[in-house]
């Protein structure tokens, strides 16, 4: 069997490689030097991606809950039950919604949007991770007029300066980390901003400490420092006119440290300089402002849209960018068309045969709370949502939970109808990389049992709920996406050209960035300690990791060692409290308290307590569903 070229399902770097197939099973991964993203280099997850489809617990036949038990049924029965229960829930005046996913292809996410805003006539379609990414895009849009950064991961290798708002990209986005390592070898100065030491901070020429959730204090100061330091882009500033003065005035209160001034100076002076934002744990407004700061910094110094000066916002997981781009986002129609855009409305009506619902949707957390019926495309909300336990309760309360997945996840317990779909190794379609490349996913083997490709299942649901819809393949869905999008973005979807990134025309769309005043930066309230989730989310709960015998080992060992969870403290904090490795500590916040064993994490700032995302539910009384909170820590 010939090796099949496809795209990595894990992180949004979007590395290409070949799946090696033997006797109808994926048995290995072959790197591709010709692939423009990976250029032959993959991380451990990419190298292990053939395992879960072959070793994992697969869903192989449609299931329906009957008297509390899951029973196999025919596709016909399952699809009918799914459609009927959704319609009945809606008719009873209750809210229904659809969850897309970073684990699903663009085609599947798009059909999820069409299912919601078209066939089911509900505005609630979103992914569990949209809230971690969309606000950053909105912040870029405020300044640049588009919901995207620019440049590629490969561009990073040639940068003289890289400003990295760090989570832990060596773990979350290894290809980005690799590019940074190579840039540094070539003499690049790396500046990291973060509260938690990571492999990247250890390589930094300058590491700027930030308070978790308040990284914006640093980015705001960077803009002020750059403006004070001169070396600005005259054309942009002249064009901004009076708004530039307003910008300057808005920065008057900024506190610029020496480190921030140096970093801003390096960035402004470099020919090729990058800004990279790793997934952050902060509220939406803060994220939006942070991205606005960084876009302003890039624009004012002339780096915005300059070839060789990338501005990269890293989505937390695989196809999160694609999911948002095709419309799994409360405030947009496909292609980030505003809901108020009549042109977009009639364009979609032309394509869908029904006018799209153009109301604002709920975010995933609200939707889960309010809705009584939901379609979930390739996701386990209990593993991905900030409050996993709440998501579980919410799903339990629902009248119908239609779950499409390739793997058995804990969400299975909560589903009323299960529709088995193909995993990435058996699916055709596209995913969008963090740089905007639309990349091809190709089926290497057949789906197990009665499982079908996700796009085909969603198309069948659409057909039952609305005007007859038939696609002769995932490619036909992609071509429909191109027609559903605003023309400038749609162009990128018409032909999948893997070597190409976001075209320049789409990048600036003829617009100049609009510089203007930045929102004031609230002072950081002093707190004894701040507890924060690690920015890595929980790879261990991703079925592609969990079911890979090679990849699951670290997270499985952690869960075995600390079944009830743990928190990470600095050496300084542990010494001060007089606790040793594994001893219990009590965390108290305004919301409540919890006790957990303490584990030392080298180089953590003294006032920071890291709560592993996998164990967030154990610490829920303290965190109260927030990613960051002020806490007092004591020996328990």
């Amino acid at each position, binding site marked *: 069997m010939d*090796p099949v070229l496809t795209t990595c399902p894990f992180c949004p770097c979007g590395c290409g490689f070949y799946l090696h197939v033997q006797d109808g099973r994926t048995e290995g991964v072959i790197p591709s030097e*010709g692939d423009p993203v990976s250029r032959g280099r993959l991380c451990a997850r990419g190298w292990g991606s053939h395992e879960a489809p072959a070793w994992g617990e697969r869903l192989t036949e449609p299931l329906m809950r009957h008297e509390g038990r899951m029973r196999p049924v025919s596709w016909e029965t399952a699809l009918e039950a799914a459609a009927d229960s959704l319609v009945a829930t809606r008719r009873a005046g209750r809210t229904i919604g659809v969850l897309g996913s970073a684990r699903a292809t663009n085609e599947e996410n798009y059909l999820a949007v069409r299912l919601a805003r078209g066939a089911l006539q509900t505005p609630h379609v979103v992914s569990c991770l949209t809230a971690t990414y969309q606000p950053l895009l909105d912040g870029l849009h405020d300044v640049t007029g588009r919901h995207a950064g620019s440049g590629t991961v490969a561009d990073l290798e040639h940068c003289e300066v890289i400003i990295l708002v760090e989570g832990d990209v060596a773990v979350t986005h*290894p290809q980005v980390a690799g590019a940074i*390592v190579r840039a540094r070898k070539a003499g690049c100065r790396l500046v990291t901003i973060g509260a938690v030491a990571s*492999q990247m901070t250890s390589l930094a020429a300058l590491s700027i400490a930030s308070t978790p959730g308040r990284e914006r204090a640093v980015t705001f100061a960077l803009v002020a420092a750059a403006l004070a330091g001169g070396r600005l882009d005259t054309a942009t500033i002249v064009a901004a006119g009076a708004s530039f003065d307003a910008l300057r005035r808005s920065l008057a209160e900024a506190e610029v440290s020496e480190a921030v001034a140096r970093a801003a100076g390096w960035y402004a002076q470099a020919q090729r300089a990058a800004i990279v934002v790793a997934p952050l744990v902060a509220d939406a407004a803060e994220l939006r402002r942070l991205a606005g700061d960084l876009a302003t910094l890039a624009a004012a110094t002339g780096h915005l849209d300059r070839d060789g000066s990338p501005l990269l916002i890293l989505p937390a997981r695989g196809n999160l960018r694609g999911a948002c781009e095709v419309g799994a986002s409360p405030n947009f129609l496909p292609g980030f068309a505003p809901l108020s855009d009549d042109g977009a409305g009639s364009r979609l009506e032309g394509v869908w045969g029904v006018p799209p619902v153009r109301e604002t949707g709920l975010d995933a957390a609200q939707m889960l709370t309010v809705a009584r019926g939901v379609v979930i495309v390739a996701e386990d909300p209990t593993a991905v949502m900030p409050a996993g336990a709440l998501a579980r309760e919410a799903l339990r309360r629902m009248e119908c939970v239609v779950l499409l997945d390739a793997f058995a996840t804990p969400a299975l317990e909560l589903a009323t109808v299960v529709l088995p779909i193909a995993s990435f190794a058996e699916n055709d379609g596209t995913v969008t990389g963090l740089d905007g490349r639309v990349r091809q996913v190709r089926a290497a083997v057949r789906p197990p049992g009665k499982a079908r490709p996700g796009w085909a299942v969603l198309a069948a649901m659409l057909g039952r709920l609305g005007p007859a819809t038939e696609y002769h393949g995932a490619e036909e869905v992609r071509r429909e996406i191109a027609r559903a999008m605003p023309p400038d973005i749609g162009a990128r979807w018409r032909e999948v050209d893997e070597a190409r990134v976001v075209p320049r025309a789409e990048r600036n769309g003829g617009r100049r960035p609009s510089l203007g005043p930045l929102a004031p930066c609230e002072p950081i309230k002093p707190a004894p300690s701040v507890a924060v989730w690690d920015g890595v989310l929980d790879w261990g709960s991703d079925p592609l990791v969990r079911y890979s015998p090679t990849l699951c080992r670290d997270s499985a060992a952690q869960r075995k060692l600390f079944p009830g969870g743990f928190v990470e403290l600095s050496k300084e904090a542990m010494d001060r409290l007089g606790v040793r490795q594994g001893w219990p500590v009590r965390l108290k916040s305004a919301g409540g308290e919890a006790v957990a064993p303490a584990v030392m994490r080298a180089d953590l700032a003294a006032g920071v307590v890291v709560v592993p995302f996998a164990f967030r539910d154990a610490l829920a009384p303290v965190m109260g569903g927030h990613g960051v909170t002020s806490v007092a820590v004591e020996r328990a």
Partner: protein
Amino acid sequence: MQVSSARTIGKERTGEWIGRLIENAEVVAPTAAQAGDVIFRKISSPVEVQWGSDNPLFPPKQVVLPQTDPLVTISRGADGLVVEPVYDERPRVLFGVHSCDVKGIDFLTRMHAYDLADTAYLRRAAALTSVSVACITPCPLGFCICCDAGPFLAESFDVQLTDLGDRFLAEVGSEKGGRLVEPSADLFRTAEAGEVARRHELEEAAKRAFGPETCHFASAMRRVSVGRVSAELWDEIAGTCLECGACNFVCPTCYCFSVKDQGRDGHWVRCRTWDSCQFRAFTREASGHNPREAHRERVKRRFFHKVSAQYFRRDGAVGCVGCGRCVKVCLGTTDMPAVVAAIRKGAWHG
């Protein structure tokens, strides 16, 4: 190689020869793949062979050591579980392989025969015959010359071809190799002295073409073997490794594995799968204790195994054939030449 045993085959006749090989064995050769890559895979026609390509990024190691390698099947019988070994003894020809990869397989075979013989591996390897093409131009990142693994081979090969323009000189280095050439004697003729002389000229020229920039194992070996590399240096090196495992996966001499059972329609297949000594979990014990928890310990382990005198004595070679693949696949910058240089100089410039 004695002059009398060398033969030549006109390039126009190689297709015929390969065609005959395909009739009798599974022939694996470098072929073109979608994204412009060259990949070793089973061919069904001589035209699929990509002659003269750079050494494929993915080594032909999977021919003897598949990424997922079934070792035994386990099924339920009348009297409990029935365990049966799985042997793969299909005759295979690895055609168009470069010298370093022949040496790599030779290394693996020695290693799997050593101490407790690994029957599954050895049976597969015994059924494999290689037809290598000597390298008349060194590949850009290769340093096989420092590892006694190329550009031409003096031993360990079955059949070695040298490109003489319109024909190949074919040297037979083993009985297995003879069995590929003898039945097709009509396609070959005995080499003339001039052709053999030309082969030696090409070898000398190829060696000279490596230039001064090579990989100096000797002094690195001295330092690694007596523990004269500081923990700080290992830390620094580890700081630029992203624990992807690629160095191990593409290394022609790496064989770390893990064992897992795969359920397949009512029975299980116990598989050996590729693993990496750079993974934290590789040495984690059931208790949770990990003797190589620190990243630097894992990096140190890799290079100790590859270049220490202790292993050199046991294996008779450094655990590196100089193919240069780790330079290309390393997600960080922690490849063999870079680390050997760092060990020699006592400083890391990654």
